[in-house]
């Protein structure tokens, strides 16, 4: 059963990975998004994330359910609040019987999360404050 969470707590990558381990799955693919320092010549100092609760959680459920229905396991956590450089903003993990599926589904989940889940970033760069990406 999927595990989905959006909260201000730091993302514990290892704890989330453990949720994906299971004798029925042979392949686990994870995507982890961290706060990057440079985007072209813009230098980021920190990022604040906010979310529309619980709509964001409901959107995650809509993404996860069809993939779980195909026999995989989905673990997604997104952090909100204040994040410093290299802090994990998002963890998306898929465990599946076959690795091709795990890659496809993991990428689909993060791509769709970035389009359809009401979470926003406010990036404080050295030159300006920017919303979005």
């Amino acid at each position: 059963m999927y595990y989905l969470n959006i909260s201000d707590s730091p993302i514990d990558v290892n704890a989330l990975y453990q949720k994906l381990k299971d004798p029925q799955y042979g392949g686990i693919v994870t995507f982890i998004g961290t706060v990057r320092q440079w985007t072209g010549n813009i230098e980021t100092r920190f990022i604040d994330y906010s979310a529309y609760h619980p709509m964001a959680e409901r959107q995650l459920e809509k993404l996860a359910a069809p993939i779980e229905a195909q026999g995989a396991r989905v673990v997604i956590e997104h952090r909100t609040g204040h994040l410093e450089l290299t802090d994990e903003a998002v963890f998306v993990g898929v465990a599946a019987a076959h690795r091709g599926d795990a890659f496809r589904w993991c990428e689909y989940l993060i791509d769709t999360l970035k389009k359809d889940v009401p979470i926003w970033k406010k990036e404080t760069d050295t030159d300006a404050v920017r919303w979005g990406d």
Partner: protein
Amino acid sequence: MKLNVKLFAMLQEQLGNVVTVDVPEKPTADQIKQAVSVSSPNLQQLIGTSRLAVNQEFTSSGSLDVSPTDEVALIPPVSGG
């Protein structure tokens, strides 16, 4: 009909957590968005690219069966991940 529209991100920073707008019965998403932007012409473009959600579901096009007790929200382009 008066609707309370929840706001997020940059819209929330500019206009507060909620704005109250006056719209016709069974409004379209565009009518609600226009009612929000009337008072904030500088945010017109951002509101135009925002999506409307009713009771935490994105709306599709056409008139919305929405009443003042529903939870209406204006969702600016998301940027999680």
